[in-house]
C-alpha cells in the first residue's frame, strides 16, 4: 500500500474521531451549540479528505471535475463554520465582515454549480502525474481556469480580512492566557487559510505543477480549533476542580462558623436591603421566635420584634453613609417589659458606591439572661434606701434610682443623660473635676465629701448640703461608677441643734453651780452690805453730833463707795458666769483663771472649812479658749473636791497645781484628801446622771469633759497614793497648737 493511501485515511479518521468526540461533548452539553459547529468542521474536514484522496487517484478528468465540484460544499460549510466559530465563540471579528465573507463563499458555491465544471475549472482537460516521494505518483489537474474563480478570491480575501480583524481585536483581550491563546489560534487560521488560497490558486493557474491539496490545511484548521476547544475544556476542568475545592473549603468554613456561632449561642443574620430578604440561621430564628425556614421577608423579620422596638429596626437600612457597623438590643414581640425576651445583634453594613446601605450581616442571639441581670442590678439600685446614680466615664448619668430622683427633685429618668458635674458641686461652687476616675481604677470605694462640703443642685435651683461616695465598677466594655448621695441637710440641722443644746446645758450647769454657791455668794454680798450699813449709820450719828463731825462723815461715805464697788464686782462675776454665750476663742492664762475662780469662791471655802494650797507655774500658761467655760470646769472640780471631804473631821485641804507637761501642754491638778474614787480607772463618773450627791443632777463632770473636749483638751480623775483623788486637766498651750 502506498503511503498516500495510508496517510489520507488516517487524516480522515482523525477528523471523524474528532467529530465524534465533539458530538459526544454536545450531547453532554446541549446548551453549547458550539460543539455542533466543531462537529461540522470536523465532518466537513473528513469529507474533504475523502474527496481529496479520490482526486489524487482520479483516473479521468471528468471524474476530477465532478469530485472537485462536490468538494466545494463541505469546503464552504467548513469555512462558514470557522467564521461562526471565531465570531460567536471567540467573540472576535466584526460580524458584518464575517457575514460578507459567508455571502461571498455562498456565491462561490452557487457559481460552482452553475458555471463550468466547477468553480476552479471551466474544464479539466487532462490529468498529469507527478512522482511523489516513496515511489508514488499523484494526479494533478490541467485545464482552463474558471473566470468565476474571481469570486473565490474575493471570498478568500474577505475571509482573511475578517480573520485579521479578529486578530486585532484579540490583542485587547484582558486575560493574558486567553489573549495568547486567541492570538495563536487566529494567527494559525490566517496562516492556513492563506496557504490554502495561495496553493489552490497556484495549482489552478498552472503556476505550480502539483496536486490540489487542501485537506492538510483543513486538518490543520481543525486541529487548531480542537486545540482551542481542548484548552477551554481543560480550563473549565481546572476551574471546576478549583471550584469544587473552594466549595469544599467554603463548606468546611461554614461548618466551623456554625459550630462557633452555636457555641456562642448566636446565630447568623443577613438582611439584603435591596431585595428585602432576611436570612437567619436556626439559632437566630429561635431567638426571635420565628419558624426556622431560613429565609424571611423583611416584614416577617420586623414583626418578630416588640412593637415599641420596631421603629429602631426599621431605621437600620437608613443608616447614614459613614455607619459601617450596627448593633441593637431589642425585645421580641409577645413579651412584656419585665418578662420579655431580648435579642442582641451586631455586625457590619455594606455600602453601595453612592454610600447608601445595601446589606447588613452579623450575629444575633438571645440576651435575655444578661438583660435580666442588668434588670436585677437596676432593681437592687431602685430598692436601695439611698440616692444612687450610675455614672459612666464621661461623667454622664446613665441611671438614677427613685430616691435620687426625689433628692434632686427630678421626674423619673429625667436625670439620665445629664452630666453629674451639674448636680454635685464642691463647696466653692466649682464643678467637681472628674479626674477622680484614674484613682478609682483600684477598685476601692472612696468617700468624697467627707469632711468637705459638697453642694447639690435641685431641679428648682435650690441648693442643699450633701455627702457623696463613689464606687467604681470596672467592666470590660466601659468604666462605670455608682455614686451614693446622702442629703445631710437634716443632719446638719440636727448638729446645729445639738450645739445649741450643748450651750444651753453648759449654761444651766453654770447656773446650777452658781446656785450651789449661793450660800457663799450671799455671804460675798453680805459683807459689803454690812460695811455699808455700818458706815452709813455711823455717818448719821456723826452728822447728828454738835457740831456735826463732817470729817468722819466723809470717811464713812468713802468707805460706803468702796464697799459698793466691791459688791458690784461680785455681781459682775456672777453675771459673767451666768451668761449664756457660745464659746469664745481667745488667749486665756490658766493661772488667772484659777485665781478668778478662787475669788469667786472667796469665803465659800472658808464656810466649808477648806484650806487651799496653790502652786501656780511661774511663767504664764496661755491656752486658747473661753475663760468663763474654763472657770466653770475648775470651779466644778474644786467644789467636787470640797464635797469629797465633807465628812472629814480634821483639816480639809485642796491643792491646786498648774504646770507645763512634757510635751508642752498645760496641766492643772486639783487634789483633795477625801475618800477617793471607788472606781478609779473607769470613766463611769463622767457618765451623765451619775452622782454621789443626794440632790445632785450628776451632769457636772459630763459637761466639764465636753468643755475640755471642745478645748481640744482632756479631763480625767485618779486616786492619790495616800488619801483622796486628783482631777487632771490637760490643755494644748497656744504655742503647741500653732505647731
Amino acid at each position, binding site marked *: 500500500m502506498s503511503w498516500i493511501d495510508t496517510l489520507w485515511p488516517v487524516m480522515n479518521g482523525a477528523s471523524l474521531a474528532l467529530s465524534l468526540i465533539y458530538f459526544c461533548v454536545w450531547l453532554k452539553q446541549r446548551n453549547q451549540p458550539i460543539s455542533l459547529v466543531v462537529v461540522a468542521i470536523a465532518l466537513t474536514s473528513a469529507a474533504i479528505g475523502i474527496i481529496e484522496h479520490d482526486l489524487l487517484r482520479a483516473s479521468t478528468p471528468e471524474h476530477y471535475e465532478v469530485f472537485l465540484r462536490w468538494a466545494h460544499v463541505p469546503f464552504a460549510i467548513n469555512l462558514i463554520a470557522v467564521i461562526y466559530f471565531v465570531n460567536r465563540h471567540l467573540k472576535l471579528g466584526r460580524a458584518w465582515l464575517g457575514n460578507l465573507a459567508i455571502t461571498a463563499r455562498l456565491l462561490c458555491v452557487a457559481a460552482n454549480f452553475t458555471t463550468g465544471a466547477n468553480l476552479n475549472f471551466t474544464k479539466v482537460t487532462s490529468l498529469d502525474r507527478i512522482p511523489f516521494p516513496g515511489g508514488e505518483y499523484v494526479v494533478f489537474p490541467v485545464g482552463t481556469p474558471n473566470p468565476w474563480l474571481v469570486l473565490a478570491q474575493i471570498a478568500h480575501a474577505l475571509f482573511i480580512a475578517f480573520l485579521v480583524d479578529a486578530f486585532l481585536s484579540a490583542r485587547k483581550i484582558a486575560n493574558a492566557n486567553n489573549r495568547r491563546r486567541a492570538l495563536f489560534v487566529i494567527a494559525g487560521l490566517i496562516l492556513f487559510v492563506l496557504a490554502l488560497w495561495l496553493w489552490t490558486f497556484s495549482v489552478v493557474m498552472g503556476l505550480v505543477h502539483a496536486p490540489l491539496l487542501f485537506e492538510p490545511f483543513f486538518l490543520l484548521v481543525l486541529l487548531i480549533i480542537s486545540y482551542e476547544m481542548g484548552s477551554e475544556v481543560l480550563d473549565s476542568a481546572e476551574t471546576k476542580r478549583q471550584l469544587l475545592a473552594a466549595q469544599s473549603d467554603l463548606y468546611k468554613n461554614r461548618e466551623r462558623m456554625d459550630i462557633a456561632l452555636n457555641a456562642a449561642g448566636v446565630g447568623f443574620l443577613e438582611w439584603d436591603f435591596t431585595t428585602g430578604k432576611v436570612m437567619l440561621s436556626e439559632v437566630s430564628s429561635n431567638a426571635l421566635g420565628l419558624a426556622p425556614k431560613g429565609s424571611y421577608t423583611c416584614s416577617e423579620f420586623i414583626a418578630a420584634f416588640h412593637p415599641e422596638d420596631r421603629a429602631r429596626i426599621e431605621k437600620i437600612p437608613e443608616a447614614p453613609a459613614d455607619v459601617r457597623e450596627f448593633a441593637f438590643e431589642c425585645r421580641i414581640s409577645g413579651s412584656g417589659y419585665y418578662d420579655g425576651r431580648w435579642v442582641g445583634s451586631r455586625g457590619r453594613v455594606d455600602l453601595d458606591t453612592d454610600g447608601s446601605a445595601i446589606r447588613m450581616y452579623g450575629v444575633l442571639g438571645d440576651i435575655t439572661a444578661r438583660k435580666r441581670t442588668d434588670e436585677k442590678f437596676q432593681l437592687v439600685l431602685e430598692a436601695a434606701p439611698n440616692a444612687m446614680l450610675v455614672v459612666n466615664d464621661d461623667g454622664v448619668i446613665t441611671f438614677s434610682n427613685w430616691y435620687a430622683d426625689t433628692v434632686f427633685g427630678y421626674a423619673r429618668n429625667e436625670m439620665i443623660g445629664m452630666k453629674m458635674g451639674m448636680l454635685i458641686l464642691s463647696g466653692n461652687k466649682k464643678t467637681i473635676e472628674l479626674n477622680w476616675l484614674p484613682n478609682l481604677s483600684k477598685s476601692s470605694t472612696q468617700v468624697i465629701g467627707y469632711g468637705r462640703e459638697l453642694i447639690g443642685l435641685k431641679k428648682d435651683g435650690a441648693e442643699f448640703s450633701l455627702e457623696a461616695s463613689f464606687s467604681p465598677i470596672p467592666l470590660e466594655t466601659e468604666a462605670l461608677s455608682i455614686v451614693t448621695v446622702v442629703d445631710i441637710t437634716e443632719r446638719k440641722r440636727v448638729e446645729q441643734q445639738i450645739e445649741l443644746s450643748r450651750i444651753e446645758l453648759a449654761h444651766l450647769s453654770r447656773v446650777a453651780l452658781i446656785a450651789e454657791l449661793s450660800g457663799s455668794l450671799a455671804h460675798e454680798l*453680805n*459683807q459689803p452690805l*454690812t*460695811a455699808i450699813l*455700818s458706815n452709813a*449709820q*455711823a455717818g448719821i450719828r456723826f452728822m447728828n453730833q454738835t457740831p456735826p463731825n463732817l470729817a*468722819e462723815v466723809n470717811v464713812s461715805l468713802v*468707805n460706803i463707795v468702796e*464697799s459698793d464697788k466691791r459688791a458690784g464686782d461680785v455681781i459682775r462675776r456672777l453675771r459673767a458666769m451666768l451668761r449664756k454665750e457660745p464659746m469664745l476663742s481667745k488667749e486665756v492664762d490658766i493661772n488667772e483663771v484659777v485665781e478668778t475662780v478662787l475669788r469667786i469662791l472667796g469665803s465659800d471655802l472658808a464656810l466649808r472649812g477648806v484650806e487651799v494650797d496653790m502652786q501656780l507655774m511661774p511663767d504664764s500658761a496661755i491656752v486658747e479658749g473661753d475663760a468663763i467655760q474654763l472657770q466653770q470646769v475648775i470651779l466644778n472640780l474644786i467644789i467636787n473636791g470640797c464635797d469629797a471631804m465633807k465628812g472629814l473631821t480634821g483639816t480639809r485641804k485642796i491643792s491646786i497645781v498648774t504646770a507645763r507637761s512634757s510635751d508642752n501642754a498645760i496641766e492643772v491638778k486639783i487634789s483633795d484628801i477625801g475618800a477617793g474614787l471607788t472606781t478609779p480607772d473607769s470613766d463611769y463618773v463622767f457618765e451623765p446622771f451619775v452622782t454621789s450627791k443626794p440632790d445632785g443632777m450628776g451632769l457636772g463632770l459630763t459637761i466639764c469633759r465636753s468643755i475640755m473636749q471642745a478645748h481640744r483638751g482632756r479631763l480625767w480623775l485618779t486616786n492619790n497614793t495616800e488619801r483622796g483623788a486628783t482631777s487632771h486637766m490637760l490643755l494644748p498651750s497656744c504655742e503647741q497648737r500653732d505647731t
Partner: protein
Amino acid sequence: MVIYIIDDDDAVRTGFVRLMSSAGIKSLAYDCAESFLADVKQETSACILLDITMPRMTGPEVQARLNAMNLNLPVITISATDDEGSRDTARALGARMFLSKPIDDQALLDAIRWVTNTPIPSKK
C-alpha cells in the same frame, strides 16, 4: 468700856469700828482670833463681837481658849449666814446674842448694853 471686834473682812471691821466711834464707844479690832487672844485682858466692862463665819479658828475654840485663860467676857456672835447651823454654833458657844449681817446700829448698841449692863450714851 471696850468692845473687841473680831472679823476677817477689813471693810466690815472698819465699819464696825467707825460705828462704835460714832456712838462714842471705844473699840479694838482684830482680823483673826489668834491676834485677839494674844491681846485680850480682863476688863471691867467689855464684850466681844465675834464673826463665827471666819476660817481657821472656829467659835468654840475661841470660847475654849477664853475659858482656859479664865477670861469671862460676854460674846456677841455675828454671822454672815443666818441658818440653823450658825445658830446652833452660837448656842454651843454659850453666846449671849446672835446677830446676822447686815447689822442695824441700834440693834447692835442695844445688844452691847444688854450684855454688859452698861448704859450706852444715847444719841443726841
